[in-house]
């Protein structure tokens, strides 16, 4: 189990290093997904299974898809068609695939070992987290929901189409 922690940490560090050095945004995004999956495995190994699931669902699932949508909406011009050819080359996906394969082998090892609850640190199960979250921390939950609502309204307000009146205020900048 100790070894699993260090392998996952190494995969996460390698993938994060690739994230900050890639030139292509989508490649960096692929590596970021691998990095988040590796961090999720680290969470599982050190005894936080609920947080590991949240990491996969919210970070690797929702937030990364949001990034991908934004990149697609930007539609960065003519070079995207040439990039499309490059994306089909093995060099684009073999790195993330190898790192993800290491993680998959670790997960298979964890499952076949037959005792998924045996982890390195002290296990804090989801029930304890939920009791604390909706007990002493319930005010924080309410504030977090307000924050998410404010994020929703803010994103909607910023992302709206410009009305003609608004365009008149900055006619020089728009083309």
């Amino acid at each position: 189990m100790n070894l699993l922690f260090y392998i996952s940490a190494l995969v996460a560090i390698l993938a994060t290093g690739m994230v900050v050095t890639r030139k292509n945004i989508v490649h960096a995004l692929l590596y970021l997904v691998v990095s988040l999956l590796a961090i999720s495995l680290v969470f599982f190994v050190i005894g936080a299974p609920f947080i590991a699931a949240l990491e996969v669902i919210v970070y690797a699932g929702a937030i990364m898809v949001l990034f991908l949508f934004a990149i697609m909406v930007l539609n960065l011009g003519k070079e995207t068609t040439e990039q499309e050819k490059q994306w089909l080359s093995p060099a684009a996906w073999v790195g993330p695939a190898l790192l993800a394969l290491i993680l998959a082998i670790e997960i298979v090892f964890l499952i076949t070992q037959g005792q998924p609850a045996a982890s390195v640190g002290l296990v804090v199960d989801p029930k304890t987290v939920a009791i604390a979250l909706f007990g002493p921390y319930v005010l924080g939950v309410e504030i977090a929901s307000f924050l998410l609502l404010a994020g929703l309204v803010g994103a909607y307000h910023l992302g709206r189409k410009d009305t003609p009146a608004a365009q008149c205020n900055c006619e020089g900048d728009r083309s």
Partner: protein
Amino acid sequence: MASVPMEHGLIFAGILFSMGFLGVLARRNIIFILMSIEVMLNAAGMAFVIAASRWGQPDGQIMFIFILAMAAAEVSVGLTLIIRLYQRFHTLDTDAASLLRG
């Protein structure tokens, strides 16, 4: 049971955080900067979770849940701002938006 020392987990979180910080400082593409901020938030949350597993208390994991909600709100607003920036300046270079006047 042999366990990972907390120091190793914290060193790991520190390395991740510094990599994200390096990305924020070194890159000029604003999408990369936002991704690096995500990495930094994640590393900070990881330090909380490692501390939670060290003492067997749920408080660190709850902190991570709050960080997660904050990151989701931040990313939605940040990506919208990036789209507006690109519509306006037709570039993702942060230096293009160095002036505050609209």
